């Protein structure tokens, strides 16, 4: 009796898998290994990749570990993806160094690798589809400058001083102010780890220390939302400019507490990976980097379908 039940269950599960699993042999297969899959940002990347796969007539899969800490699980995913003898591979490394042996294997098997989001510290990927954070932060600087009349004191809250995105967003903002807006003075740059509360304390201290402060740039979701909390608690009127998207940030923009923010284009990142992979398979030459674009959004354009599509909670 037991055996029959087990057998029935096994057949059931098997049928389920068979129905979902088999790939058509004539399509090129391109697995994407991302840094995550549950977060809205990654779901948007996946949606873009699926859209491009349909257009290009290729088959893709999209996988990522449950948290961005699970470096070893991502390596297992990469290893399983390579075992499937894919035609090309998309990869957003959690830790580039840990993935090098497998990427070398892909290279030796002539599987083109397309990096995305943060890139990979190696020359194996043919191209990297990512946001040009320097240019995006420069746009944030221009918007902030325009809102404060192109003169006065501003401050910056960054998530950290070591990650690529932290460094690029800080430098992009600072350089734009220095070269294009000489009457604006950056009085302080602080790091809050992307933590809401810590960034809020930093913002309040900045406002205390610099009574003439006119604006703050928060370089990621946590920094921007934290700055908004700090400004609200201090009771002062300041121009806030943020980065990325999020429920609170969207509400702050709607309520007028925040002027607006830069959003990346995760859908565009997903599309770029698949399109670049297809180009590589056709033997076309690829640029070293592809800027997948970014958008400025504020109260006026948040409900624009093009913008709404790249915003997430």
């Amino acid at each position: 009796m037991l055996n029959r039940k087990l057998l029935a269950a096994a057949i059931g599960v098997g049928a389920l898998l068979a129905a979902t699993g088999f790939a058509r042999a004539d399509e090129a297969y391109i697995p994407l290994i991302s840094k995550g899959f549950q977060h809205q940002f990654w779901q948007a990347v996946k949606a873009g990749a699926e859209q491009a796969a349909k257009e290009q007539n290729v088959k893709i899969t999209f996988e990522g570990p449950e948290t961005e800490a699970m470096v070893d699980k991502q390596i297992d995913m990469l290893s399983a993806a390579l075992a499937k003898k894919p035609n090309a591979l998309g990869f957003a490394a959690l830790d580039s160094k840990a993935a090098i042996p497998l990427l070398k294997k892909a290279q030796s098997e002539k599987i083109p690798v397309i990096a995305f989001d943060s890139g990979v510290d190696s020359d194996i990927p043919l191209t990297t589809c990512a946001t040009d954070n320097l240019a995006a932060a420069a746009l944030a600087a221009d918007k902030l400058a325009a809102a404060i009349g192109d003169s006065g004191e501003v401050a910056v809250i960054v998530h950290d001083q070591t990650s690529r995105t932290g460094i690029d967003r800080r430098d992009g903002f600072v350089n734009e102010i220095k070269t294009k807006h000489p009457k604006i003075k950056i009085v302080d740059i602080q790091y809050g780890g992307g933590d809401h509360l810590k960034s809020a304390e930093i913002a309040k201290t900045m406002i205390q220390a610099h009574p003439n402060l006119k604006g703050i740039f928060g370089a990621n979701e946590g920094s921007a939302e934290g700055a908004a909390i700090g400004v609200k608690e201090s009771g002062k009127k300041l121009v806030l400019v943020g980065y990325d998207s999020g429920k609170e940030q969207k509400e702050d923009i709607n309520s007028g507490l925040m002027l607006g923010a830069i959003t990346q284009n995760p859908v565009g990142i997903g599309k770029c990976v698949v399109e670049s992979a297809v180009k590589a398979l056709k033997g076309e030459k690829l640029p070293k980097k592809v800027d997948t674009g970014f958008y400025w959004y504020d109260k006026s354009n948040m409900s624009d379908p093009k913008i709404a599509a790249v915003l997430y909670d």
Partner: protein
Amino acid sequence: MTMRSAALAEGGRVSGFRARVFGPTALQKLLAFASLILLLAFFGFASPAFLEIDNILGILQATAVDGVLAIASTFVIITGGIDLSVGTLMTFTAVICGVFLTYWHMPMAVGVVAAIATGGICGSISGTLIAKMRIPPFIATLGMMMLLKGLSLVISADKPIYFNDTENFYMISQDSLIGYVLPSVPVPNAVLILFLLAIAGSIVLNRTALGRYTFALGSNEEAVRLSGVNVDRWKIAIYGLGGAICGVAGLLIASRLNSAQPALGQGYELEAIAAVVIGGTSLSGGSGTILGTIIGAFIMSVLTNGLRIMSVAQEWQIVVTGLIIILAVYADILRRKKA
């Protein structure tokens, strides 16, 4: 005198208990093993890529760390306890190893000893909280889980510690001693260590006093206590042993990634517990085998890999894994009812 005879009776009961359980346990092993073969056959038919040597090596590699953690959990679960801290303890030992090797430039052997010793000490602390302070295992090890996770982040300043200065550190996991003898099957050392540890664990569990008391505590702790045995001491020793085994897992994962990743670890305890339970060890304690646990760990990793190879959507992979765990444990319950 009566104490002594009670202890003898208990000892007799324990070995009798083992003999009594051996039949069904063997059946359980067979059942779990049959499921594993069935899975292998199914995925083998479904995808030609699945049974290729590279993929099999990939599965073995993916099982090593989870399997070692599952061995650690088996000891604790047989006592009727639970250890939720195995994942973050693994990470903590990896970070400590990084401190010794990368921060302090000590020789590799010192780092290896430090990782295992740290694991043993932390496990013993959990055991002490449970045995001496009477904190329930679930809560004591939940506390340890969070405490160790925080300490790993503090010590490493939230950043991975790379082992670039210790040239041969990667070899612990990634080199292949078997490959020197049989170049066509370069089974990574991590897998060799898993199997050696499984054999050693089985011997400890079935042939030593520690193993006997592990079973005895799980089937009737009060009887063991009444027979004059120092229950607390054995309990601390068992949690300590589990911790030391987590230290081995810490070395394996650090060597594989060539870095100690401080934020990693949470969630691994549940995979370890799932492997133990699929392998036929009862969560209520008193019975279980290391072999079953190893088979359980392989069922988990074969399933994960096979579903990936078949390109099943990730959301459905999680659903299927959940179903298989429930199915495996239900089969076990049906078998017990019959036995």
